[in-house]
Structure formats: structure tokens, C-alpha cells
């Protein structure tokens, strides 16, 4: 009898948790191409840094992918697949020049890693190929998504609650909207340049 009661409690807890985790979905309009939507920091709550590293390649004089979203504390590995020398630097993170950094030079096939502890928009550049550009969006929470080319996005497993969601698009002004997630929640953003 006692065992049955424990199983029942566990099932109820699991169902309860599932019931409190919603989905935030919507569309980013006003711009063309991929955008990023993420939930801003939640007061009093921290999230463990993900163990899995993210790789950004330099190939054919391009950063691949062009847009990467990483959770705060994540480690990004920068690979050089080209037979020419590259470097990676960013002059600032979200305009804060003190957070600018230069990773230096490394040859083909090798990689350098960096742990992004500061949230914000990181504009990646290469100082020998000025046309090269990419972005790392460091999200303060694990709740983020990259939209498809039509601007549609979906963020799963967002606990129900009130948050601030921010939409970012290359060259556009960020837009932050308050959202109240309760189950399946919609939130649209309209960005402008």
C-alpha cells in the first residue's frame, strides 16, 4: 500500500511539473531571415552551464554558422578549417568594450575555445578578412530559439511564469516584451532597423 502511494505521488509530481512547463512560440516580423528569441534573466534563478561545447567553423572565408545562440556559461570552440590564417575577435559584448577579446591566431585544423560568461550579443570578426562576420547571442537562460527564415520560433519547456522575452536580429533594434507563459503561449515581435 505504501509503495502504491509513493508511485502515485511521483506520478502526480511528474504530471504537475509537465503541466507547469509551457511553450513559447510566435513570429518575428519586420525583418527577413533568421532571428533569435530568448528569455531574459530570471531574478533569483541560476542555470548550470551546459557541458556540451558549441563549434563555430571558419571555412571558405566565412564563419559557419553565421548565428549561434549559446547559454550563458557555455563554451564555444572556434575551428579553423581554412588553409589560410584566421583569427577571431569581438570588439565588445552588447556594446560593452571591456568585454572585447581577441583569440589570436591558430592554424588549419586546430581550434580555440572560449567560455562566454557574460550575456549579450557578441559580434565575431576576423582581423585579416574584414568581410567575415558572425554572431554569438549569449542567452542568460536556457530558453532560447533561432527562428526559421519566415521568422517562426518555438521555445519548449519554459516554466510557467512571467518573463521578459527579447528578440534579436542582425542590424535591427532589439525588442523586449513581457510575456506570461502558461502552457502554450504565443508572443510575436516586430523589429525595425
Amino acid at each position: 500500500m505504501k509503495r502504491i502511494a509513493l508511485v502515485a505521488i511521483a506520478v502526480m509530481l511528474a504530471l504537475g511539473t509537465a503541466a507547469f512547463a509551457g511553450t513559447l512560440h510566435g513570429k518575428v516580423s519586420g525583418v527577413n531571415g533568421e532571428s533569435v528569441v530568448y528569455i531574459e534573466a530570471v531574478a533569483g534563478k541560476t542555470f548550470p552551464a551546459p557541458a556540451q561545447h558549441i563549434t563555430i567553423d571558419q571555412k571558405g572565408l566565412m564563419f559557419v554558422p553565421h548565428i549561434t545562440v549559446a547559454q550563458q556559461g557555455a563554451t564555444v570552440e572556434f575551428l579553423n578549417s581554412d588553409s589560410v590564417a584566421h583569427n577571431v575577435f569581438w570588439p565588445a559584448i552588447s556594446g560593452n568594450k571591456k568585454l572585447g577579446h581577441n583569440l589570436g591566431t591558430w592554424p588549419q585544423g586546430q581550434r580555440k575555445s572560449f567560455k562566454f560568461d557574460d550575456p549579450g550579443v557578441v559580434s565575431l570578426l576576423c582581423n585579416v578578412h574584414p568581410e567575415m562576420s558572425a554572431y554569438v547571442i549569449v542567452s542568460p537562460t536556457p530558453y532560447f530559439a533561432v527562428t526559421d527564415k519566415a521568422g517562426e520560433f518555438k521555445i519548449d519547456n519554459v516554466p510557467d511564469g512571467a518573463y521578459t522575452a527579447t528578440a534579436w536580429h542582425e542590424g535591427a533594434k532589439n525588442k523586449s516584451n513581457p510575456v506570461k507563459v502558461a502552457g502554450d503561449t504565443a508572443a510575436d515581435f516586430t523589429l525595425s532597423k
Partner: protein
Amino acid sequence: MNGKWLSLLSASMFAGLSVLAVLSVPPKADAIPAFSRKYGTSCSTCHSDFPKLNDFGKAFKDAGFKFPKDDESFLKTPPVLLGAPAQAELWPHTIYPGSIPGTLPVGLRYNTYYQQIGANRNNFNQVLPAGTIGNFVPKSDFQPGFFSIFTAGNFGTGISWWVDDDISVAGANANGALGDGYLKFNDVSRFLKLPKDSLNLRAGQFELDLPFSQARTWNLSGWDIFSEANVGIQNGLGPAQNVSNGSKLEDAANGVEFSGGHIYQGYHYSVAVFDQNTTGVAPTAPNIGPQNGVSFNSDANFKDLYGRLVYRFNLEKDPASRNDVQAAGTMGPRDHTYLALGTIYFYGRTAQPVSGVQADGVTPTVLTAREPFYRVGGDVNFNYRNLNVFGVYVAAHDHNLLPVTAPGAAGITGFASAPAATFSGGFAEVDYLALPWAMTIMRWDQVKSSADRINFIQYNPSAPPGSSFFSPYSATRNRFTPGEQFLIHANIKASVEYQIMPQQIVYNPATGEIITGPFRTNALILGLEWVY
């Protein structure tokens, strides 16, 4: 107006126009936006201050206008195949497969100038008789420059090409000319089982492998030593010269060139065999080729020779970085710290036909003075981060055959050796790339010419020459030229140069009285240039 004054006026006008030409026709300078399109990369991938090449640009050029490794992986537009690569296995029973670029590799360039010349610019009009209209040099002047087209690339099998042409010069349509136009067979050494890149072959019209390209200099004005001809005359003012060598080191050559090594590290050599062109001007009527009367540039049935050898020591401590195309700096790849030492040698022979008489002293004939000449020089090039210090020294020597007339003969009967016609000089330049888009230039040019001295250049108050001149006060001409260049974008450049010119003098050709003491006609040149 008597003949003396006519010649004086002509000389004055010629001199004035020469100065204008020197001031207003900057050297050609080409960067290749076609490559930017082809690879989807900025001009600054290959140029530090276009057209000045950085180390990667030098390696790109060495490789036959392609990336030194894995070129195909950088192409943004696939090439058009002129035969499947597998066709190569069928050769010689099929045409060997090649390719052409997927986009038309054409670049265009235009520049425009403003110049302001010092207050003494019209001093030479003072020698003209009252009321004579002299040559007027304006104080300030806006001038159109070159509109040029250029194309370059490779055919996918180690064969590369370059063609550039000035469609318009100084606003005059079709007043330009072909610059370089050549086909280059890169790494021919692979067929001969020689070390990689140890032998290339280039054929067509090309600038000689000068230590620093005059055709693609980044300065607003060219280096004087590369534009120095050697023309000495017999005027009784000193050692007589019978030298009419209009060739300059900067002249384009028509011929073939063997080369090897790399210009960005280690050794590099080149040996060119090319048509003699000592006229310094376009082909004249006597120089008509056998093919449908198409003219050619040779003065004589002789080929000139040019050779260059240079060794560049990359001074990076880390061997991997030292041997790579670019050095691995802590803040990213950069040009190597290096020291390059080189030498050049040019051997040619001029031919001056004159009407004379045979040994009998009576029978008319054509006599030809064949005068060998050489140019020999050395160069040094040192680079440390953004500081580039370099220089060239050249010594020139032309054999000098004076016409002689045997006693009793009706004309010239032969030639006799006389002291050679020589000149020497060079330049030293410091380029400092203060910012990726701003380069400061300090430059000093010197040319010391015995021919110049004889050509009324050296003024001797105790024995003034018999006519006026428009030339430096001394046989040694020094020019100091500070400048600054700004990249507005990677393909748009604004330049300024202040030319502190050699001293000149004006005196009364009839009396030898000095009209003006030594003076300079300094010039400020501003330029805007863009390629696209």
C-alpha cells in the same frame, strides 16, 4: 623671332610640359576587385594599402593569382570547366582540360587629382623676350587621371594571366596604352621534377621584375631612378657623349621571363629576355614587323637581358610561423618581420645609325654605333609589424661611341670610345601603417647623372652654358616627398603628397647673368582613386 629664340621658346615649353607631365601623370596602380568578387573577400586580404601587397597578396600572386592552398574551397562562384578533369587522362588524344572563372574577372579603376605648384613655377618665362607668350603653369589645377580596365586570373591548370589597359588618360579617350599583358605558366618545375615553384615562365608584355613595382606603386609619383633615361649629347661643355638611350627600368618589356622561388619568403629569381626598346617612344616607321606591317618596339636585332635575385629572411622565432604565408601574431595573422636583400642586373645594347661615308671618305653609307649598356643595383627591404623601410640603389653605365671623321673625309667615317655615360642613384622610403586605413610615407629620391650634367644641368658661373635650361641646378637631383594615404573604404583611397623638388636656376642665355638664384618648384598633389 630668330632661330635662337625659337629654340629657346621650344625648350622652355618642352621643359614646362615635362614638369607638368611629371607632376600630373602619377604611375599606374592596380588592385584587382575581380578577385574580391571571385572569392568574396575584401581588398585588404591581399593589400595593406592598395595596390601595396601584404604577405598574403604576395603569396597569392606567386601562386598564379589564386590561394596558395585549396584554392577551390574559397571560390564563391564555381569555375566553368573547359573539359572535364578526367579528360586529362586522354591527353594527347584530347584538348587538355582547363577552366575559366565563373564570373568575368574584370576590374575598373579611376583616379582624379588636384595639384598646387609653388610660386616659382613660371620663372623660366623670364628668359623670353618681352611680349612673348610663354608657357603658363597654373598655380592650382584639377586633373582627371587614368580610367583603366584590368583582368587577371588563372585557367585552373597553373596557367595565369594579367592584362591591364588605360582606356583613358587625363580625360582623353583612348589616349592610354596597354600596361602589362602576359600569360604565366606557374610551377613549370613540376614537369621537370625540380623543387616546387622553382621555375615559372611568363610571356608577353610585362614590367620587369623590379625590386618595387613602378607600375603598381602606391605612391602618387613614381620613383625617379626607375624613370631615368640616359641621353647624353655633344655640346662642348664637357666630356662629349653620343648616347641616346631612352630606355628606363620602368618600361614595359616584350619577351619571356623565367622565374622561381617566392617573394614572400626565401629566394626569388627572375631572368628576362626581351626586345630592346631604347627609343622610349612608340614604334617608328623603320620598325615595321614582317607580319602585315604590324609595328614592333625593337630598335635593333638584339635582345636585352634582365635578371633579379633576392632572398628574404623571415625573422619570426617560431619555425611554423616563419615558414607560413603570414606570421601568427598574438592578435591575429600579420605580415612577417623580415629582411630582404636583392640585386638587379640589366644588360642591353643601343643602336644609333648615322649617315657617314665609307673608308674612302666619299661613298655615302650608314654607320651604326652599337653601344652596350648595363644597369646594376641592390635593394633592401625591412619590415617590422606596421613599419616598412626599404630602398634601392642603381648604377647605370652606357658605352659611349663618339663619331669621328677621318682627315679629308666628307663625313663621319667611324666611332671612337669615349668616357661612359653614367648615372646612379636610388631612393629610400619609410611606410608606416599607423592605422589599417592610414599610411604615412617619407621618401627620398636621388639621381646623379653625367648626361644631365652635360645637358646644361650644372651651372658654372665662370663658364655659363650657351643656352638656357630647365632642369635641376646640380647634376645630383634630390627630392624629398612626405605623404599620407587614407583608405576611405578598402577600395577607395585619398592620398596627399608634398614634393620638395630639386633646385633649379634661370639665367640669361645671352649673357650668362643669373636671373633667379636657385629655387624649387615644390608641388602639393592630392589624389582620389577607386577601383571596383
